[in-house]
């Protein structure tokens, strides 16, 4: 579909931390930070991470070079939106579509080209037709796939009480409006890891390019910097280990390399196992981590060779 679609498989691991904040509230538990009751380890949902990426792209969309190139609009927005900007972008693309697009396929391609999030994460389409319902046709499978983020150690959410010292309403007695007015939860400190996968076979379908992938990594690295809030505390990306599958053949054999890179050259779990995160000796005697300094991230791949055909990019080291 797209000649410039991404050709190499990527498996990436993202390490991020929270200090005195709530990375992802659990609606089942009064917005307490999510944690797994079996292990007490903290959790961050896949959709939470994807939301951050969408918000980042919405804030910093790259300039579109031409109407035939991929656009960077976001289809699934958070709450209220400012639509003016968006409509301008689509206006530019619509010239292309003077001829009526009868085919759902063409519309689907248009959606993928226009919207970064559809192109990257996929989505469910409605054709307004009962026969199509439930068929594989009704979905766009995006090349990027995220798993839940999990913390390395149990989290210990604290409840913080908020007091108010200034009344808001004139008509109401001041005593009722001040004092203890609310609660919020924080995780004192936790380091999380989430895995992501990019499948070139789906990139071909949606027209997801290398430039889109670079943008995705940029968004991952900076997503928390533009998502500050009192509730979130300090969130920082501490690592983005991107394993790129490039093929095991000599570079003259580009065709074979391309085929290998598409399917990958090694097991993803094996590659991820090479990134070890452990407590330092001092932190171990203390029993719990208080900051990133209490962790040691060891990349085995610094000392031993990666499996043939795989390259490691440490995207956090720029």
């Amino acid at each position, binding site marked *: *579909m797209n000649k410039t679609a991404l050709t190499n498989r990527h498996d990436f691991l993202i390490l991020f931390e929270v200090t005195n904040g709530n990375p992802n509230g659990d*609606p*089942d538990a009064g917005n307490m930070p*999510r944690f*797994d009751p*079996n292990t007490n380890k903290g*959790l961050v*949902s*896949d*959709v939470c991470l994807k939301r951050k990426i969408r918000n980042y792209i919405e804030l910093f969309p790259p300039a579109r070079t031409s109407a035939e190139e991929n656009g960077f609009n976001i*289809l*699934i*927005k*958070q*709450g*209220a*939106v400012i*639509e003016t900007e968006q*409509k301008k972008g*689509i*206006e530019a*693309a*619509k010239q292309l579509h003077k001829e009526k*697009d009868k*085919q*759902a*396929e063409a519309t*689907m391609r*248009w*959606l993928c080209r226009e919207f970064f999030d559809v192109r990257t994460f996929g989505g*469910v*389409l*409605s*054709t*307004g*037709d009962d*026969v*199509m319902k*439930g*068929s*594989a*046709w*009704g979905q766009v*499978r995006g090349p990027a*796939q*995220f*798993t839940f983020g*999990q913390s390395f150690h149990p989290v210990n959410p604290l409840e913080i009480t908020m007091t108010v010292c200034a009344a808001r309403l004139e008509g109401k007695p001041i005593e009722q409006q001040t004092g203890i007015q609310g609660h919020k939860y924080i995780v004192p400190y936790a380091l999380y890891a989430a895995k992501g*996968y990019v*499948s070139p*076979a789906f990139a071909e*379908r949606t027209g997801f390019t290398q430039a889109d992938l670079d943008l995705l990594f940029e968004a991952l690295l900076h997503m928390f910097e533009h998502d500050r809030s009192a509730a979130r505390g300090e969130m920082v990306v501490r690592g983005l280990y991107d394993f790129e599958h490039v093929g095991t053949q000599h570079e003259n054999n580009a065709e074979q390399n391309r085929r*290998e890179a598409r*399917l*990958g*050259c*090694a*097991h*993803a779990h*094996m590659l991820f196992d090479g990134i070890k995160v452990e407590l330092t000796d001092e932190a171990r005697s203390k029993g719990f981590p208080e900051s990133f300094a209490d962790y040691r991230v060891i990349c085995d791949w610094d000392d031993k060779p990666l499996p043939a055909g795989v390259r490691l990019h440490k995207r956090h080291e720029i």
Partner: protein
Amino acid sequence: MTDNRITLRVWGDYACFTRPEMKVERVSYPVMTPSAARGVLEAVFWEPEIYYLIDAIHVIRRGNWFSFRRNEVISVISLVSAKTWMTSPEEVSPIQAGGGAPDGTQRNMLALQEVEYLITAEVRPSGLGSRHGIKTYVEEIRRRARNGKCYHRPYLGVREFACDFEWEEDAEAAFERRQQELGSEWRRYDENIGLMLYDVFAPELRAHGFRWLQEDNAAVDSPIRLEPAKKRKSKALTPRSTGVLVRPEALFFFADVRDGKLDCHPSRAQFAVKPAMEA
């Protein structure tokens, strides 16, 4: 048939094999369904000339139940409004999700945590041509599974629950070996589950191979058409294959996990409704 039999060991942090009777708030079956197993195998290798018949699923780790509530989007992307969007963008607005927005909602999911299975399947020719013998394909699957190659990342029920996989030469031996390795963590899982989704089409239909249902077929009265589909004029988005048009239709069987093994080969499984046989 034994030469065509393959076994993959798959494991993941989470899994959700959604029961179709509870599709709004996802509730998982306690064990992987044959259709999910097929999905994993097809993520590793798919080719119109072959199809997989899931023989058995061994449950190495059944996992714990685990509940999760997320903000989800109820609206789907409408192709009709996308068409309007191309010409008059002022008439359409994006999907508004998250905190209290009109297109968002909170949904719960009852999933499994820390699971591991052995998928045993037969690789069969689909009758859509045979450029290669079945052995060639089995070899290719073995090569891919051993080297961690996959067409797209396989997953356990839903895409956020990505899984890892490894080739196993023999299911029974692998099952024994994993029991030893797990030691005191090993729990035998036996349960008569009752009705379980087999797949969204009958295995007989699968044997013909299939092609995706496209928009131009939408007007067909009969859901299943057995004559070869007509050639598409426009550039095909998906496959080079042609085959039978298969409309998704749920098929159920009586699932019984005994000695940690869910036997689901169509020749032994008892289906809730006898599927229409086609020659």
